[in-house]
């Protein structure tokens, strides 16, 4: 066995006499003890770059303590924005060796090329942005309407992280009734992209108004996951606006570019949401104050209008009264004048009428008197003649009356016979023997009794 190992090592030294530069993605990084040896795999990921899928090629890398110091210094010199973490694509230098105790080929790392990593990240980012733009996904979120009152929030971040704490603290301190649906996701490592994409869809499925995707500050490589296609597509595909608060100092991540809005830090992201709600609350209060002010203004205006109305009514009334007074006075004068005139006229009229009546009466009387006088005169003239004629007519009547007087007839020997009941007897028919008869003669009466009755022959 030792001979085999030695033979393999020797052939490797022949095949790779110098150190080589190798490109690959860090996976299964084991930081080891502080200041100790670091192990990881350098892999060629699956076609789509998804590190959670089976890789195309893999080689173990060992970074001994001495080399690690040099590598760290190199990263620090590059600005500290590149870190060796799972999922980071690196270009590293090392010697190909055979580790006979482990029985495997490995790279003994001695140096790193940070500019490669940065360049790759930038290049990947550019490629992805172009692809998203071509599919219309880059601006899709920007076109979504941000809800006016986002009170139900989805929070996608690592549970227990400073970013989560900052956001929740900001929301809680606002005193507003936020409801937060929290998805605990991994924000670094090979599973980060997939985890964050799941988190985004999970909170969106809970019917939130907004999604907050936040992550505390870190090196560029720590945040490289937010340049991943999986997260970019997850963000762009949501129908809920996504706000990012990914701790970037300089660059924007693809997630930032795709999101509805991007903020520098998780705190700024939360503050923006609070400010949104506050603004609407303020608008509401202002609208109410406006309504109240307008109502008061209206009230005052109406009262003023009423007062003005009252004033003009009063003025008009006074003017009207004055006019009426004047009118009345004028009328009174005229009436006085016309009344006395009329009185005078009617008095004259009456006088005239009285005169008529008096003169008429007197004339009438005089006529009567004249008639009377004439009649008297005629009477006086004619009376003796009338009396004489009357006397003569009276004498004739007396003569006739005398001619019919029964006493004169009786005196000449005629008598009148009546029955017992005083009826004049003109026929013997009604008489019976024994009836009493009373006969009136000139000198008296004779009572007799009927013996026999003989009808006139």
């Amino acid at each position, binding site marked *: 066995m030792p001979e085999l190992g030695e033979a393999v090592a020797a052939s490797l030294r022949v095949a790779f006499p110098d150190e080589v530069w190798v490109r690959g993605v860090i996976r299964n990084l084991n930081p080891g003890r502080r200041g100790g040896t670091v192990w990881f795999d350098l892999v060629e990921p699956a076609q789509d770059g998804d590190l959670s899928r089976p890789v195309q090629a893999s080689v173990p890398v060992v970074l001994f303590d001495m080399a690690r110091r040099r590598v760290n210094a190199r990263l620090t010199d590059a600005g500290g924005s590149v870190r060796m973490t799972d999922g980071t694509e690196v270009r590293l230098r090392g010697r190909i060796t055979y580790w006979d105790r482990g029985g495997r080929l490995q790279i003994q790392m001695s140096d790193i090329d940070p500019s490669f990593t940065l360049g790759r990240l930038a290049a990947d980012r550019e490629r992805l942005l172009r692809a998203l733009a071509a599919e219309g996904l880059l601006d899709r979120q920007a076109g979504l309407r941000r809800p006016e009152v986002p*009170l139900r929030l989805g929070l996608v971040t690592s549970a227990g992280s400073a970013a989560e704490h900052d956001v929740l603290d900001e929301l809680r301190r606002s005193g507003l009734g*936020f409801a*937060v649906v929290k998805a605990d996701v991994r924000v670094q490592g090979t599973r980060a992209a997939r985890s964050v994409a799941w988190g985004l869809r999970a909170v969106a499925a809970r019917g939130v108004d907004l999604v907050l995707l936040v992550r505390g500050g870190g090196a560029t490589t720590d945040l490289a996951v937010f340049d991943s296609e999986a997260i970019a597509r997850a963000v762009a595909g949501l129908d809920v606006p996504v706000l990012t608060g990914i701790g970037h100092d300089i660059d924007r991540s693809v997630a930032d570019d795709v999101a509805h809005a991007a903020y520098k830090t998780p705190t700024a992201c939360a503050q923006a949401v609070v400010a949104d709600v506050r603004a*609407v609350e303020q608008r509401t209060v202002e*609208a*109410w104050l406006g*309504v109240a002010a307008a109502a008061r203004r209206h009230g005052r205006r109406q009262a003023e209008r009423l007062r003005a109305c009252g004033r003009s009514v009063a003025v008009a009334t006074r003017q009207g009264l004055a006019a009426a007074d004047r009118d009345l006075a004028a009328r009174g004068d005229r009436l006085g004048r016309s009344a006395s005139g009329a009185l005078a006229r009617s008095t004259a009229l009456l006088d005239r009428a009285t005169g008529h009546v008096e003169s008429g009466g007197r004339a009438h009387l005089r006529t009567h008197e004249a008639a009377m006088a004439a009649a008297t005169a005629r009477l006086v003239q004619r009376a003796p003649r009338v009396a004489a004629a009357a006397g003569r007519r009276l004498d004739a009547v007396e003569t006739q009356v005398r001619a019919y007087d029964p006493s004169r007839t009786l005196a000449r020997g005629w008598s009148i016979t009546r029955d017992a009941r005083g009826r004049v007897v003109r026929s013997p028919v009604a008489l019976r023997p024994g009836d009493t008869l009373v006969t009136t003669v000139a000198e008296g009466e004779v009572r007799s009794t009927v013996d026999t009755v003989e009808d006139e022959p």
Partner: protein
Amino acid sequence: MTEPELGYAEALAELEGILDELDGDEVDVDVLGARVRRASELLRLCRERIAGARFEVEQVVAELEAEVEAASGEDE
């Protein structure tokens, strides 16, 4: 009889509508009272919507973890 829940945006829009109406001069005094009453109702509704609810946090972590585990388990 209960009215359908009015959304905040609708309530605010109505409130601003009332304001616009009152900005005009042609508002009857009787109507004015009704408008102010309605505006105060809307304000109360908006206030309740914003500050009435309790701050609360809900977790969807468990199912998410399971899903991620299931998804990443495929390649191992």
